[in-house]
């Protein structure tokens, strides 16, 4: 097989790895990293044994971490299995990196192997596994972690991750299965699930939950959500709900809605609050309102 000069360079450099060259440790390390970079130009079956050698030799964690990334890009099942091995047996720093690489590799078997690691791992391992699932886009695995969580903290971390992944269906299923939690509202907002939040925002059975959901609608934002917030503000008799709706408009930056409410109000105290809200939003519309207030015609 014809090897390109880059590959030859890489192989030579790798062979030189265990020998004591008259180089500084830093230069030697840089050379190894450069060799690993170039190794990607070799066919996978040629690259794999060389990367394995780097991982099994007495190299620094920096060099081994780079080798793990190269391993994640070798499209052979053995490479993915090896990543999982390091994830299981490596030391702290290397283990975290190997878990990330399993996520990047995206191999279904290796990803499934992370579940055991999560169960038996410490906080760092658990965080790394969740991040690996995020990278791999494996919402099913994160859902399982949330559904089987042993405590609120574990549940919260998984639910937040589902929010970041935009896994609206999984979050809705969790809402049905678990005790309702404030963290779920945040996740609905992060995932952009206006529909579920609107449902919660219009449900007055739990005022605290309702207020949270209304505020969270502001995070989702958008024309339809803004209209809902104005509608909630106008139709409620509850001060807390009205305040939450105004907070929602503040969060979404819905200055036109606030202006509409300002102009519709005859209550001086309420007008003052709405004017303050416009100022906080930083809206140019506030100048119109100030002008009107100073002239005194509205």
């Amino acid at each position, binding site marked *: 097989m014809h090897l390109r000069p*880059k590959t030859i360079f890489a192989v030579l450099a790798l062979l030189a790895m265990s020998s004591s060259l008259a180089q500084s440790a830093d230069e030697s390390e840089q050379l190894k*990293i450069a060799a*690993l*970079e*170039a190794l*990607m*130009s070799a066919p996978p079956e040629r690259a794999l044994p060389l990367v394995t050698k780097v991982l099994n030799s007495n190299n620094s964690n920096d060099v081994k*971490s*780079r080798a793990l*990334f*190269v391993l994640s*890009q070798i499209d052979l099942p053995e490479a993915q299995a090896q990543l999982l091995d390091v994830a299981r047996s490596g030391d702290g720093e290397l283990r975290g990196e190997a878990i*990330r690489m399993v*996520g*990047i*590799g*995206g191999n279904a078997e290796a990803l499934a192997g992370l579940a055991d690691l999560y169960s038996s791992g410490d906080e760092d391992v658990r*965080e790394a596994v*969740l*991040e690996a699932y*995020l*990278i*791999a*886009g494996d919402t099913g695995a994160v859902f399982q972690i949330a559904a089987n969580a042993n405590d609120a903290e574990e549940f*919260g*971390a998984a639910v*937040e*991750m589902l*929010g*970041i*992944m*935009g896994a*609206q269906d999984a979050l809705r299923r969790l809402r049905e299965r678990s005790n309702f939690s404030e963290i779920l509202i*945040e996740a609905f*907002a*992060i*995932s*952009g*699930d206006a529909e579920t939040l609107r449902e919660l925002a219009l449900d007055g059975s739990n005022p605290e939950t309702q207020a*949270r959901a209304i*505020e*969270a609608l*502001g*995070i*989702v*934002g*958008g*024309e*339809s959500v803004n209209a809902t917030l104005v509608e909630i503000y106008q139709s409620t008799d509850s001060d807390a709900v009205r305040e939450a709706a105004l*907070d*929602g408009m*503040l*969060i979404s*930056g819905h*200055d036109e809605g606030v202006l509409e409410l300002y102009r519709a109000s005859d209550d001086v105290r309420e007008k003052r609050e709405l004017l303050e809200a416009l100022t*906080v*939003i*930083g*809206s140019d519309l506030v100048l119109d309102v100030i002008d009107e207030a100073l002239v005194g015609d509205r």
Partner: protein
Amino acid sequence: MNEDTLILYYYNDGLSDRERRQVETAINADTTVAAQYETLCRQLSELSDAEDQPVPSHTLRRWHDSIDQAARQNQPGQKKPAGPFNLFSFAWGAAITAALAIGISIGVYMTGNDSNTPAPIIEVADVSTVVPASFTRGIKVHLQDTQQELASLPLDASADRIMLILQIIEQNRFFERAAEHNNSQNLARVLRAFEPILLRLAADDIAPEDAEALRAQLAFELNVMLTKLSRDTSNETQST
């Protein structure tokens, strides 16, 4: 109508629902805009062809400008008030807080997941397993640009550094979505994996040596991906 807006409309990216409707109305009501959009669709469709035609540099430039515009739309001064709602307990802690505080919201990230319809150009991926050559070239340009931007990144805790990183993140998300739609799940995963590192790099309390280590890691991973892409392209050329 501004061509950048039409490009964003075409890719179903970076425009709010209201802005999309405005563009839609303009296309339906104004024959000039309709013709302009038709021409643009033709040009952008050509980009998705698997045939090995070079991407016109002006198109690439425009593409990047569009991304820049989308990034600018999420910068401070565009009224993104912070509310009392506590969202800031993500896995990436302080880093993502910094990112959110200056205007990049997770909502933007999720645009691709809950937006109305998939971008038309990248539907190619749903009917074929071929990765369009134009996409591969585009991703190479993105990786090279990211390399250069990271190399020139100031490592002191300045607002410029944070803004630059957030801009890289925006571009990265754009290409990550494009990768998903263009049958490049591996690339999408790699690009997604860059984001937590970029967010850590954006943290304003990061020590210079830690920032340098993260930058070196990204530089390495970008190089490896560029080498891999070149290898794959070269193999395809040799086998045809």
